[in-house]
Each structure stands twice: as structure tokens, then as C-alpha cells.
């Protein structure tokens, strides 16, 4: 597998050329995205992740080489349209089953930290 990896690290000429046109992902970007994803990272994690994501993004940037003019996006492999069921009440999990796994609950509700001042 070292072979594959060295290919990625060195890149071919086209990729090296392209690389100049794609901004590297900065620590600030990673912090911003981690906030969007509601994940707390410590500073070591942030540094390591920024470097790893940079490698991965450089690799996946090879998609820029593909001509996708006129190609429809594939969201789903099966030829399915929206699937509807009839609007009828059907049995569902009882409330205590739904709440069973929660960390905190009270009077049939999930309990979370206060959100209204």
C-alpha cells in the first residue's frame, strides 16, 4: 500500500498544477466546520485533523478532472419515486420505550439544559 500512498503524496503533474488553484483547508476552516457539526475538538485534534483533511481533500480534488457536462446527479441507485403510505394511524413505540435510552427524562419528555432565559 505504500505504493498507492506515495502516488498520492507526490501526485501527478496535473494534480500538482491544480493544487495551486484549490485553497488548502486551514485550522480556522476545520474549527468552523466542527462547530457546524457540533463537535468539540481539542487543539491537538484540530492540528492533526487539519493536516489529514488537507491530504484527503487534495486526493478527492481529482474529481475536478472529470467532464460532467450534461450528466445528471445520481442520488439513488434504484429507480424509485417518492414512496407514500396511506394516512392511517398505525401502532408505534410506546412513550416509555422511546424514552428508555435517554440520559435524562421527566414526565414523558426528554430533559435537556435550559434554552430559554
Amino acid at each position, binding site marked *: 500500500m505504500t505504493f498507492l500512498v506515495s502516488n498520492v503524496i507526490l501526485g501527478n503533474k496535473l494534480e500538482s498544477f491544480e493544487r495551486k488553484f484549490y485553497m488548502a483547508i486551514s485550522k480556522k476552516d476545520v474549527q468552523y466546520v466542527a462547530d457546524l457539526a457540533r463537535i468539540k475538538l481539542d487543539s491537538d485534534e484540530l492540528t492533526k485533523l487539519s493536516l489529514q483533511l488537507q491530504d484527503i481533500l487534495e486526493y478527492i480534488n*481529482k474529481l475536478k478532472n472529470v467532464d460532467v457536462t450534461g450528466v445528471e446527479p445520481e442520488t439513488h441507485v434504484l429507480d424509485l419515486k417518492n414512496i407514500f403510505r396511506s394516512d392511517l394511524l398505525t401502532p408505534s413505540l410506546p412513550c416509555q420505550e422511546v424514552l428508555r435510552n435517554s440520559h435524562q427524562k421527566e414526565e414523558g419528555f426528554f430533559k435537556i439544559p435550559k434554552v430559554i432565559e
Partner: protein
Amino acid sequence: MLNTSTAHELLVQLHKGQIRHCDILSDIRKRIDRIEPKIKAFVKINPDIKIEHNVSGVLSAIPIAIKDNICVKDEESTCASRILQGFKAPYDATVIEKLKSAGAVLQGKTNMDEFAFGSSCENSFYGPTHNPWNIDNVPGGSSGGSAAAVSADESIFALGSDTGGSIRQPASFCGVVGMKPTYGRVSRYGLIAFASSLDQIGPITKDVSDCALLLKVISGYDKKDSTSADLQVPDYTKTLTKNIKGVKIGVPQEYFPIDSSRKSNTIIEGIDKDVSIAMTKALDVYRDLGAKICEISLPHTEYAVSVYYIIATAEASSNLARFDGVQYAFREDSSDLIDMYKKTRGSGFGQEAKRRIILGTYVLSHGYYDAYYLRALKVRTLIKNDFINAFKKVDCIITPTSPTTAFRIGERADNPLAMYLSDIFTISANLSGIPGLSIPCGFDRNNLPIGLQILGKAFEEELILNVAFAYEQGTEWHLKKPNL
């Protein structure tokens, strides 16, 4: 030593009255007691496995191991993640309902890469599983626990899930049979979602006959999974004829040179020499069996890994949003709601899960959506079309399952990209929805198993099972056992 048998062998012996149900369970139990401390295939073993379900079912009393991302009612289903510690599923996955009504005995839950994020079983909250062929090596992943349990004869067979190769690659690394059915063939209801447009549950077994048997039991339309296919399920065990005369087998020139003596267009580098040799020999076996080998082209192969890691992480970032400390067991307390979310997810998820959620969030975020996610969906169309075009020429496609055999534990832990690239042969099947299976086809110089992958047209599992069966019956690789 009934634990070394296959399900179809045990069922014949049970029918003839040569063995009792309890003999199977007791041999399994003995094997687990002796071997499991070395292998660590399971995250939970049912302490008191007994026959409690349908004794007259088609899998009556046959023990089965279940990957830890498949929900079993009232049992912990943790996806090998800290964030799901203590979570007990309030319902059975559809495949579990089907297994129970077929009379199978659920042995316990098997180890995996956290949320199926990985190809080595090292990204588990419980620690790694060890490859039965060499305990210093990984069993592959993410269904590494299931593959190792079957390979080490701790189970008769097992269920795994496959999003980019997570059944086929560990089956290859552990020297067993593993199949990803066509997307929609098996209900995903109760499978804790990783990437909903790619995930499929499938069998990991000791031979092709068991694979057919287990696939038959778990397949079928389910109104609880609107993406399951409303199609008749064939009896896969009845179409294993061994006769593959005239079957056209394609070998993608981008994956593997069909004729090593001439210059090839192979763009996948880094295939281990022993894997290449085993592949070449396997093609000879197929020629002798009367199959026709032809070269085909899958021109968008080199983009598959990129497309996969955009789509899979995007879907994962959305699917894993639900783990926020509110509904499930694990929570880091804070007086502020957003801070509670962040702390819970920061310490509840492992490194690979965080990496993938953040990458997925990034490719979906404003300003990058068109460049990454939308473009990946378009290239996915091209990859799917590559297969549609190839299948106009051939009946099935053969490739190595993985470019290498099982690597050492820790070897790739710090290089996620190298780990991602090892999925090169398997991920296209998930992107295009087609079925694929891996069967043992030899050993490398270190006595580690090599896997052969057979890909087929959507919903034509019968054909690839028969192509696998013909090879298996003509060789003895599947009969080899690790020396434990």
C-alpha cells in the same frame, strides 16, 4: 467439533437425527471459551444462548453472530462507539425478525469499526479484533468481528453490513465468504445508518452454499424500508448448479491486467504480487470450467474512491446528527445546550468518526456543495453507467477483493487516506448498487488468505453465487482453517 461445520451440513445432520440442537451450542461455547480471548471478535456474547425460537424453521438451532450495528430488541447495539454505550434497541431489525422466525440462535454482537467507519476493525471503542490467520494482523473491516468469528469457528455464520466493502474485504482478509447483496435486496430497517444510499446487510459464511441459504432468509421487501425492492426472492440454494459453461466473465483492464505479458492500462497500482498471482490462477480455473474471460473497461475507476468518500461522509454527517446526548444513553453534562451537544459528540465519537463527520459537513457546506457533493453525485452516475455498459458485454466481473492481504494492526492507523485507498475494488459496487461477493482464492507468502471478488448485475445474485460455487467446488481454499 460441530462448530467447524457449515449450516447446511448441520441441518442435514439434524434432520437425520445424528446430532442434537444442544450439541451445536455446546461445541460453539467451548470454542468461544478457548479462542475468544485471542481473537476478540465479539463485543457481547449472550451468556445463556439457547434455542428459544422456532425449532422447525429453516435455520433451526443454528448459531449466528450479529454485527453490533444491527438492532436486536432489548440488547445493547452500540456500533462499537462510546456514544451508544448502554443503548438497548427497543425493536428488532427486520433481518433479526427473519432470523428469529427461521429458528436461528443469536450468539451475540460482533466487533466493528465505530459506526462502520474503517477497513481494519481498529476504530472500535472496545479495541481491535485479531485476524485468526495471524493475530498480529487486522481482520479487515468494518465487519471484522463477524468475519473473524466465522473464520475462527466461533460462529457457524454471521451478518455484516457493507457500505464500501465492509463485508467483502474482511471476508477476504479472514478467508471466508462474504456477500453484499444488491442495494434494496435486504431491508435496512434496524441497521444503524452510516450512508443510507450505500448500506446493505449481508451474509458472512464458511462456504457459498451457506451464503445462498442465509441470503434467502434475510432478503425481501419490507414496508418499513421504503428503499427495499418489491421483487420476488429466488431460492438461491436451488440455482447452485456448478455449471458455468459459456458464462462471460469480465476483467476490468483498469483493475487488473488480463494478460500480464503485455502492457496494460491498469491504473490501480500497489496490488500485492501474491494477490496478482492468485487472480491469474483463478482466471485459469474459470477457463477450465468453461467460462469465457474477456477484457472490459470501467473508465471512471480512478474517481471511485473520491466519489465514495464525499458521498459516504456527507450521508454519515447527516445520519449521525441524531447522536446529540438527548435521545441515547451517553451525555456529557453542561448547563448550555449547544455546549452539551459539542462535549457529548467530542468525547462520544472516536477519531475516525469525527474525521468523517467533519469531512461530510465540509463537502455539504455553503460554497463547497457544488464543487464536492453535487459533482460527486454526477461522477457516481458515470461510474454506474460504466457498469451498465460493461454488463452489456459480460455476465459478471471478477477482480481481487482487496489489493493486499491483511495488514498489521497499527500499520495504517495514522494514515486515513491509505486506509481509504484499500477499498478501491469494493466501493464501486456500493456506488452503483450492484451485488458482489468475496470468496477465498489462495494464500500469500505469509499464509494470509486472498479473496476473489465477483460482481454481478443488480438483482442477479443467483448468477454470481453460482459462479462462486463453481470455483469453490473446483478448489479447496474454503476448507483451509487457521491454526489457532
